[in-house]
């Protein structure tokens, strides 16, 4: 009797998990396409040419900030790390990552903010500020063309799983999950827009729609407000979990940051 009750409980538990999340098959690795590959040739050309890619203005500002020491006498980024090309090579491809000192999992902007407050004695630049996006773009450029490394390979599988649950969660008044558009219906027309697969290979990136450079969190926020849901607060752990899952889903794809998107 006890065993049957346990079986029933197990079956019901499995059912409740299934009922929460949208179950559609993921994209086979060979079928994955980045937003760069599926966007129009004119925007591709804009990204390919560093002189016409508007995100490269952010890179230039970020490189200048890299070697500018704060006025409080603490070191510049370059004071500890040295040359950005050598020090930051491949770093963005391995983010989000666990901070060895605090044990916290940080995305790249979170890592830069921690450095600013702990090592430079500054109040960290806010997310979405030009200064933080510029530093992020300058660092991300040093991973261009490199394969995105799966977060599970650096012990972050828990966050990946939480992120997948969010990816399969229906949100908002329109009651849609990420997976329903970006796994089940990519390539199809949503009004005048082709639905992309939603791989975070190019962040931070310049969106023509925004007319500015922006972060992955900003893009995810757009999706949540699009389905008429209340976005998570800036810097909330849900964004990080979603990013971990999306980076796992895009593992092995080439980074093309800082990108341009329509």
């Amino acid at each position: 009797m006890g065993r049957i009750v346990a079986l029933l409980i197990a079956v019901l538990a499995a059912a409740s998990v299934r009922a929460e999340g949208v179950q559609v098959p993921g994209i086979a690795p060979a079928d994955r396409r980045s937003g760069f590959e599926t966007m129009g040739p004119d925007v591709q050309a804009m990204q390919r040419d560093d002189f016409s890619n508007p995100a490269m203005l952010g890179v230039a500002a970020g490189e200048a900030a890299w070697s500018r020491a704060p006025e409080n006498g603490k070191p510049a980024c370059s004071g500890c790390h040295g040359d950005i090309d050598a020090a930051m090579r491949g770093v963005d491809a391995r983010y989000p990552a666990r901070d060895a000192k605090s044990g916290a999992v940080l995305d790249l902007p979170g890592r830069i903010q921690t450095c600013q407050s702990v090592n430079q004695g500054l109040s960290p630049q806010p997310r979405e500020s030009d200064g933080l996006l510029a530093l992020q773009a300058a660092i991300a450029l040093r991973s261009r063309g490199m394969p995105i490394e799966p977060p599970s390979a650096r012990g972050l599988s828990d966050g990946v799983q939480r992120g997948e649950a969010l990816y399969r969660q229906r949100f908002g008044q329109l009651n849609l999950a990420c997976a329903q558009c970006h796994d089940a219906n990519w390539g199809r027309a949503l009004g005048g827009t082709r639905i992309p697969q939603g791989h975070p290979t190019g962040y931070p990136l310049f969106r023509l729609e925004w007319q500015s450079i922006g972060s992955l969190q900003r893009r995810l926020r757009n999706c949540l407000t699009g389905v008429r849901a209340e976005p998570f607060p800036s810097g909330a752990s849900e964004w990080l979990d979603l990013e971990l899952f999306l980076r796992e889903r895009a593992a092995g794809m080439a980074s093309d940051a800082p990108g341009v998107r329509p």
Partner: protein
Amino acid sequence: MRRVALVIGLAAWLAGPIAGRVAVGAPMEKGAVPEAAPLATSRPPDPANGRRIVVDRRRGFCLLCHSGPFPEERFHGDLAPSLAGAGLRWSEGQIRARLIDSTAINPDTIMPPYFKSEGGYRLGRAFAGKPILNAEEIEDVTAFLATLRD
């Protein structure tokens, strides 16, 4: 023995939605779709207003996913069947049932529930307590879609 039957019955009940997933996108038999009775409204249905709601990108936004006989609209989606002939394929009650809450017909549908006031997970504050369309608008759209018989 009865316990075994209970477990088998439970397993079959759980397998139901899984089997249902296989049929996503497959044509459904007309008889299999439930009907919904007309909603209580303050005025008779207005099919012309229904058409305006269907093409409106903020109210019905139907053309984000569907195509249909709307030559003046530039962009039609292709995530869902064309609305052309909707009135031939479905009864008014079936059209209304799909609009009110399509997940009651297909739990995996991407079609938003247009007349469900309890809202979704993390519902946006601006939309609290409001369905996507009100009862009059549901009846207008139902009446309009029922006229699409080509």
